[in-house]
């Protein structure tokens, strides 16, 4: 336990800013999660592993001398096709089945990806160095790497583009219609199979962007996927499906929580505190819902 963070206000400011910039990235991943959850009613445990895979794409570009920031454009393109491949091979067989089946199937995919990445890229913690320098704020008391600001900016850009695409384009409208009522959409001539595939592809592409940004800003490791899944799941249940400002806000809140947990409890409890927070949020939600049920009585 370390309460330094409360004695020196500048550390709190640092933690808050770090957390907000980190949280925007979480929100991008959670947006993809909300999309596929809303449309296909599937919880994808492999979400975090898709993120890490996107990170490795950017890392490899860095290794071959291309600036990793281009990964933001390359990773989603590759990940889109990876997503479609996963959909065609596995997900389309579990879409309208029991939810637990889809959880377990994606858990299998997650283990598979984790190990394949471990074989292909090794078990080292890596990062793609972007050489963006740092920004000093408040009399040099707060240090913000420019890469974090860059990644937050790109995340917001992608999220806005996607929102506009969902609103305006034909495919976007088909996706929203399928989310509302798959059967009715089918009757009215929407090819739901194609819509599902596209949704999963878009989700994977978003994960790819987020992963590329994470490899620039933080570090990646083949086994680091599950925490990202849990974070995005948590953000989605706190915000609710289809509530985009809520996703952004709760993403940032989670980021700030994590930074403070990191300072107060120590880095070794960081992931543990995320998972504990998930359990606490679910329990809180359960008691809130049960109170609502009592009103109905």
């Amino acid at each position: 336990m370390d309460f330094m963070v409360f004695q020196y206000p500048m550390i709190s400011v640092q933690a808050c800013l770090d957390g907000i910039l980190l949280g925007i990235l979480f929100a991008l991943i959670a947006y993809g999660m909300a999309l596929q959850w809303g449309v296909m009613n599937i919880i994808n445990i492999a979400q975090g592993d898709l993120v890490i895979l996107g990170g490795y794409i950017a890392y490899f570009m860095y290794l071959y001398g291309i600036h990793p920031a281009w990964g933001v454009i390359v990773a989603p393109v590759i990940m889109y096709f990876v997503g479609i491949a996963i959909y065609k091979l596995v997900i389309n067989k579990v879409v309208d089945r029991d939810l637990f089946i889809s959880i377990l199937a994606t858990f299998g995919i997650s283990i598979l990806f984790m190990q394949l990445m471990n074989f292909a890229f090794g078990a080292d913690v890596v990062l793609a160095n972007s050489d963006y320098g740092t920004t000093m704020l408040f009399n040099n008391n707060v240090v913000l790497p420019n890469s974090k600001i860059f990644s937050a900016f790109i995340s917001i850009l992608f999220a806005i583009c996607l929102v506009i695409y969902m609103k305006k384009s034909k495919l976007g409208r088909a996706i929203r219609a399928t989310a509302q009522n798959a059967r009715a959409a089918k009757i009215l001539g929407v090819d739901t199979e194609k819509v599902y595939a596209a949704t999963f592809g878009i989700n994977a592409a978003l994960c790819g962007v987020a992963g590329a940004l994470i490899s620039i800003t933080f570090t990646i490791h083949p086994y680091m996927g599950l925490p990202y899944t849990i974070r995005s799941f948590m953000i989605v249940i706190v915000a609710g499906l289809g509530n985009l400002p809520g996703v952004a806000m709760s993403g940032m809140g989670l980021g700030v929580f994590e930074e403070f947990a990191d300072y107060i409890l120590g880095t070794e409890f960081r992931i543990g505190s995320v998972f504990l927070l998930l359990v606490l949020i679910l329990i809180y939600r359960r008691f809130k819902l049960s109170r609502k049920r009592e009103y109905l009585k």
Partner: protein
Amino acid sequence: MKNNLILYIGILIFGIAAPFVFPAFKVQLSILCVLIVLATTWNIQGGEMGYNSFGNILFYGLGMYLCASVQVGMFFPLAEWTESGGEKTFVHTPAQFFQGMAVGLIVAAVVPTIVAGLIGYSILGLRGHYFAICTLGLGVAAGEISGGIEIIGAGQGFTTPPFPDVGSLDSRGEFFYFLSFFVLVLTFVTVRAIYTTRFKLILNAIRDNEDKAEAMGIETMKYKIIGWMISAFFCGLAGGIMGGLVGYIDSTDVAFDGREMGVFMVLMAILGGKGTLWGPIIGATVFHIFKEGFWTFFLGWQYVALGVLIVVIVIYFPEGIMGWLREKYPERFGEVVDEKDRKAQVELK
């Protein structure tokens, strides 16, 4: 019924004779017993109650740590033991070892049961996938947190007391085999007894439609918690034995190993057939044989194979072996089949 009695006696004799017939596989057989216990108890709330938990690994790991800690802590200072990392500075005498093991196993069974009862009220109120994800988070959180606690070894692990010298060389394998076999028999007898009572029907009612069961006047929460506590009891016991068997406890790789053991228990129950008495047992046996074969031939690729296996089983074989048998030979399961109706249905397809 008479058939079954012969079957049980046959299995019992086989179980007692097994370590002498296959002396090379004693450790494997003990692990098999533990796996069967885990699959069977997962089936209580996963198969019968419809609450698919990824979190039973919590009780397993808790039991493992508790049993080893008690076994050490009864005679030696625990902090120094973990710091020395299993050096031979402290040696258990045989009497101390067995006493410690006995007390440790009791603690390892009782404490997880209490924990399950305490957290049960909050967590079992969650439904469907919220429950699954919550228990998944619980298991991982336990692993991460126990990996940060100094007194039980933190990141560097915890060496359980080595088996004392009691004459013959092979007695370690036999001791752990009979211990795990005893727990297996205990589990089987308990579960079988439970499945003949009204309790099982209540669990099935909860699985089929919880709201209706509640409306019929069943206090569903009470039964859900009891079901989970029974699971936790045997999971803790299995964990305690496994800790002694492996001889080394690591927070995320051995004890709270959600990636391996936590998925195995779900997979074994599904492979054998959820919601049947024999399903998890058959599933665990098949899985263990398959896994050992795979692990030897595809060394290094085992987790890749595991991932593929999960996907394949879940997608193409969700009913499991028992479900498949039931489809094939419904008469053997006491179902009356109207041949005409069956044919008509086949034609419709």
